């Protein structure tokens, strides 16, 4: 308490030399800090929470080697733990090869069973199997019930790199706007192994579940509301992993259909790009970057790109993610090359799918390619490649890769490209119609 005051007093003195506006802000900060006066030392809180924190491990049955490690925390009686789906995914996808284990603070350990999954929000509810149940468990974590203010201090708990249960202080920075699914931006160092652990407020109530870090203390949490929703539907007995997997395709198709519906609603606002009018940040959760080549004398052509993405990936397994979307437009032009030379430049582009996958997850891309007149662009002929690949384990789910290219008179070329990862057939068709139907020449 004292040190906090000292710090704030020091800050106030420094600011008094500055202009009045800054002084006012400084006072506000002081007030806010006084209202939510927090302990700077969390020893007793950590002590209290520790027994309800667990290390969750996926173990290769044949070699007894640890395959994945994360964290989990007690959320209900009978040893009900919450963790991330991506911590337990290997077990759910291949229960014959992997076993799911836990370790508590006093080094007691045992087996876990999976009760419910939410792949969209990367959550899983697991339970300590009856035989492995220790005599006494800690008190389950309480979940926060009031909204958290931006800037509030939070404490992340988990087992980074399997070096022991740790506490990481940080700050709540609101919900991300750049993603379709809600996610909390937490400023604090989340490291591998802390996934599935809770992040609590100084009272010890869970605000979010650790899920990912982007480096440099930029980290992300799953809002606790998603966990609450999942906990409302906990089955009494654990379903077989195959049963848990069975409905995943429909869940993803449904989620993606809602997202695409949201994306396609209303008219898109178009912005100029070279000779085209194109959609850019049509929703807050679509983020765009643009780039143009410098006009250097030794490079006799110019190019610009507009690249808009929904980088909202749904984790399915270590080698497969889905849910990403990207729209890319390219414009090439030159006043120094003849049409043949320009073609050589223009044909250099290659287009790759946006999401991560392996041969064991998806089929090869199957493509149709032909000259197509795009009606919205005055019927101008584009060489269109429309490619699809199917997910092996999720029937009805597809990745779509579309590229349409046209070189126009006078050494100019445009390409239109999108990737849709993990969509159903109807969503794919609806998005395609809107994409090619909304473009215009300037």
């Amino acid at each position: 308490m004292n040190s906090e005051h000292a710090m704030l007093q020091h800050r106030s003195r420094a600011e008094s030399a500055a202009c009045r506006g800054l002084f006012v802000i400084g006072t506000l900060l002081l007030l806010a800090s006084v209202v939510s006066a927090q302990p700077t030392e969390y020893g007793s809180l950590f002590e209290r929470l520790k027994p309800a924190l667990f290390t969750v491990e996926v173990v290769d049955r044949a070699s007894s080697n640890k395959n994945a490690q994360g964290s989990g925390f007690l959320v209900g009686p009978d040893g009900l733990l919450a963790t991330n789906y991506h911590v337990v995914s290997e077990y759910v996808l291949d229960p014959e090869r992997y076993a799911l284990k836990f370790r508590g603070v006093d080094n007691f350990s045992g087996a876990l069973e999976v009760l419910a999954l939410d792949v969209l929000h990367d959550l899983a509810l697991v339970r300590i199997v009856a035989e492995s149940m220790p005599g006494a468990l800690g008190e389950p974590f309480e979940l926060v019930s009031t909204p958290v203010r931006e800037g509030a201090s939070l404490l992340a708990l988990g087992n980074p790199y399997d070096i022991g249960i740790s506490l990481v202080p940080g700050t709540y920075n609101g919900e991300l706007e750049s993603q379709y699914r809600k996610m909390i931006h937490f400023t604090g160092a989340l490291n591998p192994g802390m996934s599935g652990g809770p992040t609590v407020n100084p009272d010890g109530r869970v605000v979010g579940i650790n899920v990912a870090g982007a480096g440099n203390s930029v980290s992300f949490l799953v809002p606790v509301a998603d966990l609450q929703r999942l906990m409302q539907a906990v089955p009494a007995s654990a379903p077989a992993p195959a049963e848990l997997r069975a409905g995943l395709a429909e869940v993803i198709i449904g989620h993606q259909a809602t997202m695409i519906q949201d994306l396609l609603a209303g008219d898109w606002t178009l912005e100029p790009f070279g000779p085209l009018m194109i959609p850019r940040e049509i929703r807050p959760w679509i983020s765009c970057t643009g780039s143009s080549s410098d006009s250097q004398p030794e490079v006799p052509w110019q190019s610009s790109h507009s690249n808009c993405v929904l980088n909202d990936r749904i984790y399915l397994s270590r080698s497969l993610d889905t849910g990403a979307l990207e729209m890319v437009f390219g414009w090439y032009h030159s006043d120094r090359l003849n049409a043949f030379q320009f073609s050589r430049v223009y044909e250099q582009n290659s287009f790759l799918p946006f999401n991560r996958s392996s041969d064991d997850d998806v089929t090869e891309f199957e493509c149709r390619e032909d000259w197509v007149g795009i009606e919205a662009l005055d019927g101008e002929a584009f060489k269109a490649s429309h490619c699809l690949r199917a997910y092996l384990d999720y029937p009805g789910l597809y990745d779509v890769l579309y590229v349409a290219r046209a070189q126009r008179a006078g050494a100019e070329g445009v390409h239109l490209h999108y990737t849709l990862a993990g969509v159903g057939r109807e969503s794919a068709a609806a998005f395609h119609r809107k994409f090619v139907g909304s473009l215009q020449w300037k």
Partner: protein
Amino acid sequence: MEVIIEQLGTTNNVLERQKLDAHRVRIGRAFSNDVILNDEHVDAVHAQLEFDGEGRLFIEDLGSVNGIRRPRHKGAVGRSEVISGEVFLIGRSRVRIYAGTHPVAPAVRIRASEMFLLWLGKPQVTIGLVLLYLAAKIVATWLGTIGEFRWSLVIEQNLGEVMLFIALAVGVYFLSVLFRRGGNFLAHISLLVLLFLFSSLLDAALVVALFNAGDAHYPLLRTFDEGRGYLELLIYLWSVLYLAFHLPLGRRSLISAAVVAVVIGVNSLPEDELTRFIERQSFPMEQRFLPPGLLLRDSLSGQEFGKRVEGLFEDLERERHKALESRDEQLSEVNRDDVVAAEELPELNAGPGLPNS
């Protein structure tokens, strides 16, 4: 009195045949002789054939350094009667002498294709073709250069090909000299240039066709592309076997067809993993683009193309099942390996890290 004189190659093949109507025939290296042998072991005036009063033919050494011999005989011939069809070694040249009445096989008819190949050996034809080749190279380099065109680029980009042509022509020339003392170097250069021009034309046609085509026509064009390569190889071999080795039509057709068949056979062996991998990586969209003026057909409407795309779903379902089956096969192999490993290392199954409490 008539006499037929044949110069023979190493395999007793006839290199040159002359029929002379004279009482006396002089043989030697000098131009003044009736039969000129280009052989440094032959004297300027080496030997003489002469009919005597009774019509018998005699061969006589005119005091040469290397003499005249009969093959497989050691003794030199000073003056000897010639039996029609006898072979003599004059210096190191093999010469067969027939009496004028000896029936000679009729001359081989030269076909139009062979006339054409010989015509290619005319210097003015070779020069014309080489000029055409240069022009084509300059145009192609200019069209394909992204950035400033320099004349040196024409050389930089095509030197390798020109060297290859020359190396091929020289190599074949030496081979043919080995087998029949003299090849047709210019005809060979002309042939290579002509084949190159032919291949470039087909290539250009193929690029334009691919640019215009949709995926429905890709397999056909790919077959055409492969067939084109085999056709060029066939034409080249067929021509070389005539130009350099003078093989008769039947034999050279048979040999070139056999070689091409072997090449096709090798190429159609089951693909290895690597080739399959490379093929998988290439999307159809990675082909050449051309200026819009070379788009010679109408495009599909959005609906027509959309219908074709709909057809993909059926294909994908089939592909999905195939991929699932092959994955299951692989997995069962891996599992068998696991079982073996577990049997070999039983202590690992009850590792100390994981008490089963």
